[in-house]
Every structure is written in structure tokens, then in C-alpha cells.
């Protein structure tokens, strides 16, 4: 072996140089990783270490017009779990199930939430009762990754009295999560499902906060509050135009026996003072998941408590629509308040080979328009309708808003049913060219036939009658008044119609509903309907005081019989509002 010292020294130099270079390269690599890329890796290690626990934000408080609470938040608890995978989630649910009752539906819901958002703590019990919380809290060490946190719980102090109005909240559904409108939502979060809660979701939703906990590689929480909390923020409160006192009165008035819808509005501003649908339900029961049996009970009720009869239900308007006919005729100069029709009312009207009856079997005699409105004479309006003609009657009805939604700021308002213009094409489409006669004109002119209106839309129409022909868009939440001129009559014509409406309650079909000291104007309606041939729907839409309207009330009683019954309900609401209103005045401007 060539082990001459010189050669060995040379090899040692080569080896040393090589060594040095390798170590330099290693050092360089660490410099790159630690110094140049240090920030990136630091972020990754923070992500490893910190788990963000969402802190649910309280929803905005909803007030009535005087600052009374319609919807608020109560302290509640949510229980969630930090799971590493679906299996460990199921195992943990089973172990929790050995301590507290857990239904298969709850497990299924938790698994669905996990699948959608595996990095977020999976909500197991969105609204855990205190008993459950205390049991789990006691045995917390047995369930690593279990998170018990306070979660504001929605509460409606007046419960069933406000359900048609305020709606309710619930956990965001799978279907909603797929929609673009809910792109910013996460499973397990609460969202407005109906009513104001849904309509004003973006204003009522708070800003979710976060708590940062430190977890280890197995997902166990090893340190609470590893970083200061991000405090959840509640949005500013929502002020409505609702008069909670009136709302409660309406609710109590309907009690448990009546079914129907009510809308009470301020005629000039469109402010909705009360909106009710009976029978009702308790929205508080819906918070944190609707109990199965309660849901079944609501579903099975033939009077359909979940169906909003003020904005969703559409009903034939009957005689309350006679004012539309009258206005269409007056606008065209076809009739004046004192004009009579060629034929007097004898209880029926012969048209072609068919007799069209008046509701009053012994007839109204030879009436003027004013007395025809007061007595709701069908025969008068048959003749008026024929005089207008089908084309103008439909076109005029459309112009008066009979095919339009009222535009109330509540979700899912139904669109009224009414013929399209031109009506010939509409009826040809409906019944075939030979399937109908001009008799539809007669039906239409008294608010029957292909005409089905919502309570809220009728209320809107009568705000125009109560004022100057401009209808105000119903507004539940305080906002800009929006009025649309529906018709332009001369002041004398308008006064004439208003006088006729006043005499309806003074001496006409709603005579039984007169109030002491308050003059009420309005129109009754008794609408025949296909569901029940014996019991008609009972309508009343009107305003008070007649000389200076402060409130418009529309009432529909499902299968309630003659319009007089609805009138009694409506006038009592007016009475309560107008008498109580004086007392409530100083508070009107509210907070």
C-alpha cells in the first residue's frame, strides 16, 4: 500500500475539503429552511398547533316600534367535538351515547356536518339542555376533543303571537349550504328560516368569533386560549314598525278557534302594525331543532298552522273587490256615485240563459253606486261589469295591482291569481275557446271567478282608498316609505267612495261592527270557495277613523261565513289600536 506520508497528507487534504464542503452544504440547506423559508414553516407549525373553535355570535335583537323586544338571545350551550376522522367521531358519539341519550338522527346529522367541514369542531348538540351539559362537563376527561361552549339561543318572548311575522331560526340545511347565497355559512350555524329572521338574515347575522386552542397530533386539546379570543359580534338591533301590543291583541282575539290572516297597516307610510296568521305555532319550539312530535302535530292540523294566511294564502276576494270594479268604471267615466244601472236588483240577474244571483234573495231594488257598495249589491256590479267589458275590467284590475305582490318585506309572499291581459287569450288558454262565455265578466266584477288575493295585498289596496289613491308598500321593518299611485279619481269621486265605505259600517253590511266614537269605513266580503261549498271565507278590509284614517285592517277568516264576522274582528282591532295608540304615543319614536 502506498502509505508514503506525502500521499496520505494529500488524501487527508482531499477528504478534509470534501468534508468541509458537505458540512457547508448542510449548513446552507438549514439556512434556506430556517431563515429564508422560516416564515412559511412557522405558519405551518401554527396551523398544526392551533385549532380555531368558532364562537357563535348572537343574532340581532328585533324590536317593535316602541322598543319592546320581539326576538332576543338567551344564553345556551352547544356541544361539539374535534374529531380526527369520521370513525373516531362515530366512536365518540357511541361513547357519549352510553352516558346521555343520543338518537340515530343526531349521529347522522353530526356525521353530515363533519363531512362538510372536517376541520371545524363538529356540532353534536346545537342546543344542549343544561342537564346534558352538566353530565358531560363532569365526565369531560373521558371525552378528549369534546367542546362545551356557550351559544346564544334565539328566543321570542311572545312566541306564538309573533310567529307569522318573525319566523324562526334553525340550523342551516344541506340544501341551503349548496346555494350561493349561503356561501359564507358553515354547517351547524343558525340561519333565519322564515319571516323577518329570513328576510333580514344579512342584517341579523352576527359575526362569528373564535377561540384558539392548542391541540396535539392526536387532536386532543392541551391548552385553552392559546391566543386571545376573537370576540363574536352582534349586529345592530333591527327596529320594526310592529306594534307589539296590537300584535298580542290580534293573537288573543283569534284565540284558538278562528283561522285566518290579519294585516294592520298605517295607510300613508305602509308601516305594518300587526300581521298575524291563525292558528299559530310557537317558534321557540323550533330553536335547536324542531321536536318530531310537535312537527307532526303541526303538519297534521287541518287548519294548517304552518301556512301563513296573511301573506301566503290566496283567497277569492269576493265583494271587497267590488271597489276595484267601481274604480275601473269611474276612471272611464262610466258611472258616478249617484248613477243607477238599467235594471233594479230583484235578487238575481238574467244573463243569457243563466240567472246570476245576488246574495240578497229579496233584492236591493234600484240602487245608486253608493248604496250598491253599502249593501254590496251583486246585480248592480254585474251590470257595471258588463258596461266596462271584460277587456277593460281585467286591464283595469291589473293596473290596480290585482296581479302584483304587495311587496311586503317578508319572504315567500304569494303572487295573487288574476287573469292576464288580454283576457280572451287567458280564458281561451284556461277553458278552451268554446269553454267560456261572457259570464266570467259577471263573476269577475263581484270578485269571484279567476281571482284569488292575499290578505296583505288587499290591505295595500285599501291604503290607496283610505288616502289619495296611492298605495303604500307594506313595511315590517323601518325603512323608506314607498307609495304608488294606483288610480286617479277626482277628489269628489274619492270622497264619494269613502263615504260609501263608511256607510257600510254605519248602516250597511257591517252594521253590527259599529264602534262607539270611531267612524269605521270598509267593505265586507263573503267569498265562495271550492274547498267548502257551505262555509264561505269571510273578508273585511277597512280603515278608521273614516275621516282621518290612521289604520287599515284586512281580515280574512277561513270558512268564516259572512263578511260581517270578519268585520267584527277588524273593527275590534281598529278600536284597540286607536284607543291604545293614544296611550302609546310618547313611545312611538322609540329607541
Amino acid at each position: 500500500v502506498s502509505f508514503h506520508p506525502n500521499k496520505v497528507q494529500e488524501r487527508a487534504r482531499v477528504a478534509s475539503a470534501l468534508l468541509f464542503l458537505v458540512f457547508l452544504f448542510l449548513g446552507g440547506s438549514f439556512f434556506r429552511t430556517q431563515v429564508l423559508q422560516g416564515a412559511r414553516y412557522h405558519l405551518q407549525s401554527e396551523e398544526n398547533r392551533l385549532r380555531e373553535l368558532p364562537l357563535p355570535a348572537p343574532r340581532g335583537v328585533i324590536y317593535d316600534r316602541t322598543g319592546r323586544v320581539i326576538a332576543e338571545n338567551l344564553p345556551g350551550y352547544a356541544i361539539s367535538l374535534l374529531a380526527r376522522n369520521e370513525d373516531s367521531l362515530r366512536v365518540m358519539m357511541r361513547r357519549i351515547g352510553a352516558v346521555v341519550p343520543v338518537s340515530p338522527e343526531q349521529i347522522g346529522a353530526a356525521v353530515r356536518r363533519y363531512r362538510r367541514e372536517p376541520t371545524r369542531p363538529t356540532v353534536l348538540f346545537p342546543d344542549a339542555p343544561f342537564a346534558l351539559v352538566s353530565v358531560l362537563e363532569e365526565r369531560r376527561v373521558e371525552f378528549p376533543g369534546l367542546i362545551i361552549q356557550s351559544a346564544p339561543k334565539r328566543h321570542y318572548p311572545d312566541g306564538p303571537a309573533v310567529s307569522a311575522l318573525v319566523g324562526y331560526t334553525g340550523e342551516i340545511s344541506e340544501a341551503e349550504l349548496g346555494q350561493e347565497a349561503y356561501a359564507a355559512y358553515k354547517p351547524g350555524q343558525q340561519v333565519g328560516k322564515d319571516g323577518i329572521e329570513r328576510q333580514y338574515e344579512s342584517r341579523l347575522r352576527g359575526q362569528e368569533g373564535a377561540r384558539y386552542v392548542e391541540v396535539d397530533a392526536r387532536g386532543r386539546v392541551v391548552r385553552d386560549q392559546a391566543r386571545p379570543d376573537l370576540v363574536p359580534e352582534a349586529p345592530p338591533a333591527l327596529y320594526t314598525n310592529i306594534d307589539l301590543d296590537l300584535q298580542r291583541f290580534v293573537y288573543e282575539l283569534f284565540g284558538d278557534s278562528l283561522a285566518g290572516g290579519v294585516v294592520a297597516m298605517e295607510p300613508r307610510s305602509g308601516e305594518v302594525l300587526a300581521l298575524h296568521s291563525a292558528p299559530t305555532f310557537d317558534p321557540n319550539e323550533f330553536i335547536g331543532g324542531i321536536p318530531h312530535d310537535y312537527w307532526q302535530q303541526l303538519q297534521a292540523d287541518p287548519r294548517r298552522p304552518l301556512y301563513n294566511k296573511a301573506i301566503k294564502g290566496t283567497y277569492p276576494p269576493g265583494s271587497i273587490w267590488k271597489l276595484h270594479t267601481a274604480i275601473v268604471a269611474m276612471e272611464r267615466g262610466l258611472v258616478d256615485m249617484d248613477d243607477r244601472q238599467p235594471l233594479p236588483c230583484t235578487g238575481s240577474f238574467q244573463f243569457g240563459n243563466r240567472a246570476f244571483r245576488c246574495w240578497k234573495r229579496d233584492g236591493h231594488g234600484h240602487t245608486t253606486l253608493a248604496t250598491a257598495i253599502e249593501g254590496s249589491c251583486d246585480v248592480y256590479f254585474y251590470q257595471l261589469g258588463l258596461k266596462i267589458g271584460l277587456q277593460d275590467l281585467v286591464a283595469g284590475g291589473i293596473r290596480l295591482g290585482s296581479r302584483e305582490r304587495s311587496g311586503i318585506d317578508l319572504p315567500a309572499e304569494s303572487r295573487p291569481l288574476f287573469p292576464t291581459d288580454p283576457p280572451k287569450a287567458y280564458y281561451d288558454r284556461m277553458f278552451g275557446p268554446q269553454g267560456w262565455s261572457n259570464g266570467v265578466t259577471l263573476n269577475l266584477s263581484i270578485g269571484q271567478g279567476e281571482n284569488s288575493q292575499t290578505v296583505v295585498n288587499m290591505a295595500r289596496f285599501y291604503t290607496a282608498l283610505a288616502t289619495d289613491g296611492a298605495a303604500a308598500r307594506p313595511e315590517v321593518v323601518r325603512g323608506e316609505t314607498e307609495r304608488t299611485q294606483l288610480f286617479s279619481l277626482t277628489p269628489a269621486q274619492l270622497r264619494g267612495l269613502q263615504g260609501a265605505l263608511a256607510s257600510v259600517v254605519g248602516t250597511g253590511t257591517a252594521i253590527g261592527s259599529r264602534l262607539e266614537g270611531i267612524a269605521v269605513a270598509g267593505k265586507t266580503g263573503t267569498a265562495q270557495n271550492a274547498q267548502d261549498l257551505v262555509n264561505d271565507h269571510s273578508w273585511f278590509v277597512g280603515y278608521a277613523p273614516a275621516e282621518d284614517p290612521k289604520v287599515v285592517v284586512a281580515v280574512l277568516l277561513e270558512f268564516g261565513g259572512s263578511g260581517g264576522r270578519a268585520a267584527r274582528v277588524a273593527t275590534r282591532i281598529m278600536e284597540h289600536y286607536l284607543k291604545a295608540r293614544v296611550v302609546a304615543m310618547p313611545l312611538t319614536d322609540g329607541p
Partner: protein
Amino acid sequence: VRSRVVPTEWPLVALAALLTACGVAMVYSAGQTDVPNFVAGLWRTQIVWAVLGVIGAFVTSRLSVRLLEWGSLPLYIGSTFLLLLLIFIGTGAGTAASTKSWLAIGGVRLGQPSELAKIAVVLMLARVLSNWRAAPTSLFALWQPALIAGIPWLLIMAQPDLGTGLVFIVIFFAMLFWSGVSWPLLVMAASPGISLVLAFSTGVWGAWFLLLLALVAWRRPSWLESAALIGANVAMGVVAPILWERLNPYQQRRLLVFLDPSSDPRASGYHLIQSQVAIGSGGFFGKGFTDGSQKRLAFLPAQHTDFIYAVVGEELGFLGVSLVLVLFCILLLRTVRIAGRSTSPFASLTAFGLTAMLFAHILENVGMTIGLMPITGIPLPFFSYGGSFMLACWLSIGILALISSEGRGKADGLVI
């Protein structure tokens, strides 16, 4: 027999002692996790091993080189026998749970014979190579050292322990280099192995093969040798994909993950990614001794053995990492100098072989923590927790101190 009062190679011993102290401190830190486990108490055991190692080194340094040379054959035979035994009775343990690298009798784990085998192979190679009259010029003349390194290497690959196998290869070539074998011959000797690695890309392998042909044309080995060389390279190129199929899935995954850690971020790539995150997040100054969050929260795997350097990186930052690298570098430069100064070929070769062994461990272990080397699970000298390896490292230091003192004693006449 001479007598000495003070060890003459005190800088080497001091460096090793300093590194060991740092290592024990890091093992202690590795045990400081938020959810305490068995690692918490291992630093005490590690101190015991270190003390035993130092005693062993002291005893070794008082032997003579001649005794070492004489003992190399029985040591080699003994350790090879133990490796052979492992094939039948080896068990897995610790971070090497999936291999048969442990020798256990009656359930009591005695140690990892491969650690001893490394030193034995170094000594045996030194003995054989030092008997050469002149450096060989033909490949076939390398059969003797190839056989000596090859037998234990095959036994270790059968465990299977790729990392230790890699260390043997480094030792083998380093000692051939030190014995004066020319670099073209070294390249030719290594060529089948290189072909094996490069065979995964036909293009790269082709380029390598052309380069090899050029080398053969230039050096003109005998026709038989040329044929064998070219045949071996072609065979490796063909065999590689077949061998790949024969590898355990976890070994395949480890190699693939080395090429692209993100290919398997939850399982095999997890170790590397978490190690890199730990080191990278340490930044320049580190998160502070015992305060590494990756380690504390158990994101870092095998933090007390294979990935202890990631703890250094996370807690002491680039500063700590550089300091330890500098210490290792000085240590190795020192041992190269010992090898270079020794006048006895056997002693010189032994010193260089041990240097190569330590170097292979440092390069592979440190390199794998930041993804420069595949994850093979071999320990870092003086740092990684483990008794056999700590003893092996300190025995090496003892041998190096012995060689240093004998070499210098003869050259400088400075026997104390």
C-alpha cells in the same frame, strides 16, 4: 505497555464530550411533551449509556493498536455471526420496530449487533487493506475487501436496515480511497450500484452508461473486466425495476416520499413534512430549549431518536443547528488529521474508516430531517437516544484516541 496520565488527544475527547452533553440535553428536551409519555425519563438512561461509553473509550484508549489488529478477525467473525443469528432470532424494537435489528435473549434486549459490526468491518478492512503491497489497479483485485464488507452488508440488508447498509457502503469506498485506490477504479467499482439507482429513469441511466463506456475506453481494463463491468451495469439497469417490486411497500413509499414528500402527506410523507415544519419554524433563534411546539404536541415523530436533530432545529434555531454542525465538522476534521498523521497503515485506515462511519451517520441523519436524504432511520452520533450506538460512538472515540497517541508517540516522542 506504556503509562499515561493525561489522554493525549484531549481536543477529540472534549469535542465528543461536548456533543454528548448537548445530545443528552436534547434527549431530555425530547421528553418534554404536553402529554407526557415514556420518553420523559429516557435522558437519565442516556446519561448511563454515555458514562458507560466514556469508560469504554477510556479502557480502549489504553489498549495498543497491535492488540486491535490482532483482535480484528475474532471481532469480525463474532459480529458477523451475531448478524447471522439476527436473521433467525432478531426482534424489532423502538423506532426500528419493523426490522429484525435487535438481539434479545429471553425477552431482554441486549443491543443492536449492527453497531458493533460497523467497527468490526472497519478494523477488518483496515487489516486486509494495510497488507496490500501496492494499491490494486484491477477490479477483481478488490474481491477481498468486497467480501469482508459484503457479507455483513448483505446480512444487514436482510433485516432489512437500508440506513445501516448505506453506512457500510460509505465505509467501504472511503477506506478504498484511503488505501490509495485510484478514483476511476472507485467509480467503476461503484458503477453497478449507481446503475441500480439511476435505472428508474431510462434517459439518465443511458447517459450514465455512455459515461461509463468512455471511462472503460480510457482506462482500458482487461477485456474480462470490461465485459463484467458492462454486463453488471446492464443487469442492474434491468434488475432495478424487479428489485423495486420486491421492496416492502413501506420502503417503496419512503423512497418515493424522499422524491416528493407531498405525495403521501398523511402517512410516510408525514414524518418528513413535520420534521421540516419543526426545523423551519425554529427560524434563526429557535423557539427556546424544551419549548418546541411541534415536539411538545407530538407532531414530530421519533423525536428522541431519528428526528432528534429536528428538535435541535426547532428549539435552538439556525444558530443551534450551525453550532452543532460546526462541532461535528471540527470533530471529523480532527479525526481525518489523526488518520493522516498515523504512521501505521492499519491505524491510519482504521481512523479513516471510523471517520467515514461517523460521517455517514451525520450526513444521512441530518440530511433526512430536511429532506436531503431518504428517511432510513439511522441515528445521529452522540444525540440520538440508544445504548448500542452511544457505546459504538464512544468506542470509536477511544480507538481514535489510542491511534492518535500511538502515532504521535512514535513521531514526536511525546509519551507522557
